[in-house]
């Protein structure tokens, strides 16, 4: 009887914590694809999945740089065997949200669920787009219902970040089998929210999970809001007007109209501040870069004249113009391959590749790239020199084409624009068949390894889209994998960054600002560098 009373009290306190009248209204600028963690790769599906499912670990909401903390695990993993074995205990008393798949029974979350969920990423049947994050797993054991032991193929001190990845949340085997091919539309997790209504590509309505375990912050039970209503709005004008009309509570996908609400020095315009609207501004954990295909016969290779050609092209390109014209000031110059907010980032590092078309011309002259009668330079052997830059047939990419044209004109190099659709560019890139292209990478987890692997030789044709193969770089990268975060690893990263610059494989360009606009009623929002959303932690002020 006492136990029943306690349960009732808990249920009541839970109901009090999440106020059903507090519904957060947000927008996505692109449609989701579904909510089966093993089967999606898009950011928007990941955002909803993060709210419904529980990974073993998560990040402290306010700590910067991002800091791992236990989520459903009792503690951070015990790492043994020289960084090859991770052991975690799953907390008792955590339950999946009620669902028909459980046939009326309460279903406790166990280590077996995590073992099942992680194995799903490696099952070819699921063709998981994020299988690459879990490919280092050699085996998973569950000695008892609460313990999971993950054995890796090789030393990896960063694997804990993978366990905090939003898609690494636990699914229940019964739910996956119950819904079969429809599992993407019926997510059943143990997280703070559950799916209430779902109109694909249009509306996603979440409600606070009444069975969510007790999670508190500053003495208050989370979540405080009763639900989230996500509307898919592809067009910027629709999102911008909807926000101004108060039809949405937060909006971060307005880079095209940023000048309407942000001053040149990055402050909220006074007319918006006067209405109580808030601006949360941070730099996304991403890098944008211009890469050269190191296997291309025109720009590739490590011969001095090839390095000189790449260096001259990189020096002719104005990153400042890219930020001013294309980003409309809403980006910062990227100096280091690891962006701000990611472990290993060095705020004092400065790129060794300046914007200097005059020096670029002198470099080309020195290495025998002479101008012909038409004013364009030729290869040292006299053959025509044509740089083939690849981009998509979009308005934004046309602006990149124009900046490339301007850059190459300034050093007398002929440019050929190669236009193709995204899948085809991706295919050619994976086959190391593009010459020069812009590319971007956003952190899957906030550790430098996620970025430094982009130049690792064996990753050519996958994430290493420059197809760079340097024994010196690879040797250092392999050593860095054996080290935990710290000065020794940072030193190696420094050397690797300088090697990349010496060989001029990339020209790092920028990292974009994330400007989040919030209605006055939204409280406690702080953009986390890695988490997709902060719905668990924010509150809404109700009208008086």
């Amino acid at each position, binding site marked *: 009887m006492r136990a029943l009373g306690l349960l009732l009290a808990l249920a009541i306190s839970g109901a009090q914590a999440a106020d059903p009248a507090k519904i957060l209204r947000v927008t996505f600028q692109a449609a989701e694809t579904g909510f089966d963690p093993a089967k999606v790769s898009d950011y928007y599906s990941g955002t909803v999945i993060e709210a419904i499912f529980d990974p073993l670990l998560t990040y402290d909401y306010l700590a910067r740089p991002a800091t791992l903390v236990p989520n459903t695990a009792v503690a951070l993993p015990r790492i043994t065997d020289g960084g090859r074995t991770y052991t975690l205990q799953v907390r008792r008393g955590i339950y999946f949200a009620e669902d028909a798949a459980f046939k009326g029974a309460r279903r406790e979350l166990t280590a077996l669920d995590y073992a099942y969920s992680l194995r799903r990423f490696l099952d070819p049947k699921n063709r998981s787009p994020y299988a690459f994050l879990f490919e280092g797993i050699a085996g998973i054991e569950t000695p008892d219902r609460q313990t999971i032991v993950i054995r890796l193929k090789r030393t990896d001190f960063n694997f804990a970040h993978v366990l905090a990845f939003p898609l690494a949340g636990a699914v229940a085997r019964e739910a996956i089998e119950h819904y079969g091919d429809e599992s993407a539309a019926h997510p059943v997790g143990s997280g703070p929210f559950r799916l209430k209504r779902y*109109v694909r590509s249009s509306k996603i309505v979440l409600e606070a999970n009444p069975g969510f375990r007790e999670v508190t912050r500053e003495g208050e039970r989370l979540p405080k809001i009763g639900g989230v209503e996500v509307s898919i709005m592809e067009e910027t*004008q629709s999102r911008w007007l*909807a926000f101004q009309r108060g039809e949405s509570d937060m909006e971060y996908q307005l880079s095209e109209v940023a000048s309407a609400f942000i001053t040149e020095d990055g402050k909220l315009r006074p007319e918006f501040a006067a209405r109580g609207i808030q601006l949360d501004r941070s730099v996304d954990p991403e890098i944008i870069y211009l890469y050269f295909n190191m296997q291309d016969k025109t720009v590739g290779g490590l011969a001095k004249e090839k390095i000189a050609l790449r260096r001259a092209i990189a020096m002719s390109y104005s990153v400042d113009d890219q930020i001013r014209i294309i980003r409309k000031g809403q980006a910062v110059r990227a100096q280091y391959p690891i962006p701000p907010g990611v472990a290993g980032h060095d705020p004092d590092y400065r790129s060794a590749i300046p914007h200097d078309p005059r020096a670029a011309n002198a470099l080309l002259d020195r290495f025998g790239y002479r101008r012909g009668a038409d004013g364009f330079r030729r290869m040292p052997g006299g053959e025509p020199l044509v740089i083939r830059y690849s981009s998509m047939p979009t308005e934004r990419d046309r602006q990149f084409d124009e900046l490339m044209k301007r850059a190459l004109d300034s050093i007398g190099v002929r440019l050929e624009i190669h236009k193709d659709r995204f899948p085809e560019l991706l295919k050619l890139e994976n086959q190391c068949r593009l010459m020069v292209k812009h590319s971007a990478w956003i952190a899957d987890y906030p550790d430098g390894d996620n970025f430094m692997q982009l130049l690792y030789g064996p990753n050519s044709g996958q994430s290493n889209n420059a197809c760079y193969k340097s024994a010196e770089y690879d040797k250092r990268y392999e050593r860095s994998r054996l080290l935990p975060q710290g000065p020794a690893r940072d030193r190696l990263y420094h050397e690797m960054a300088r090697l990349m610059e010496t060989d001029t494989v990339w020209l790092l360009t920028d990292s974009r600002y994330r400007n989040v606009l919030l209605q006055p009623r939204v409280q406690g929002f702080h953009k986390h560098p890695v988490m997709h959303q902060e719905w668990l932690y924010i509150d809404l002020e109700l009208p008086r």
Partner: protein
Amino acid sequence: MSYLVRRLWQFVPTLAGVILLVFFLFNWVGGDPAYMLAGKIASPEAIENIRRQIGVDQPYWVQLWIFVKQVATADFGASWSTNERVSQIFATRLGPSLTVLIPLLLASTLLSLAVAMLVAYYRGSLTDRAAMIGCTVGQSISILVYILVFQYVLGYQLAWFPVQGWGSTLGENLTRYAVLPIVVGVVVSLAPDIRLYRTFFLDEIGQDYVRTARAKGLGEGRVLWLHVLRNAAIPVATNVLIQLPGLLAGAFLIERFFSIPGIGREVILAVERSDFPVIKAVTVYVAIATMVMNLTADLLYRALDPRVQLK
């Protein structure tokens, strides 16, 4: 009946042409979908696994035969990117599209007919010239401009309608969310429709039967709305019916800006994602709808004018 059978039989070669065109266009210019589905980092084995699962590793003739069977059984399988059944996509997206398109077509047709009749009656007058100049200007403005301006002025500035959105009941959508998209759609189609219908009416107003009707002492209203309209109804009906299938998939701009979960928006999503099962289904269904509407228009001729012989 023999006419109907013959026309239905003619659907087959037309549909075969559509199937071949879609299939070859997608395979030649559509790019390899496996690379998009594979995610950020994918090994060659992972790419091959995806190609095998979605069937694009099969010889072209096998893929084409599968396509033909899908058309024959009306089962296009599941979306490559969301795994949702294509039949389910149509079942759920058709309603919102029709909620906008049917009132839009009705309102634009009735309004265009009324204005066209008016300006045709006053042919050559200042009213006629002003209307024609207005139509020419209106026609030369992109639909995108109409959407942006109407959404900004009527939705945001004047707050007469929601800026965007879609509700969960037909009544809520018809009275709240669909109104502004319908207004935009009507305004966009008014200019070309008025010009077109005006020419139909002018053709009829000069006919002998109109003079005869007037000579018999019939009132102008009766002459215009009964005799002239009935005789001009054949090309009007054709225009309305052949617009419908195109509008279904072609209203994507209105659906995107006003966040309407309709077919047009789904088509754009499918193209962006190289989601061939959805693209195949939409193309085939639009082709079939176009043929059915053409046939319906032909049958309607007979109902509207008993002198028409269907052979």
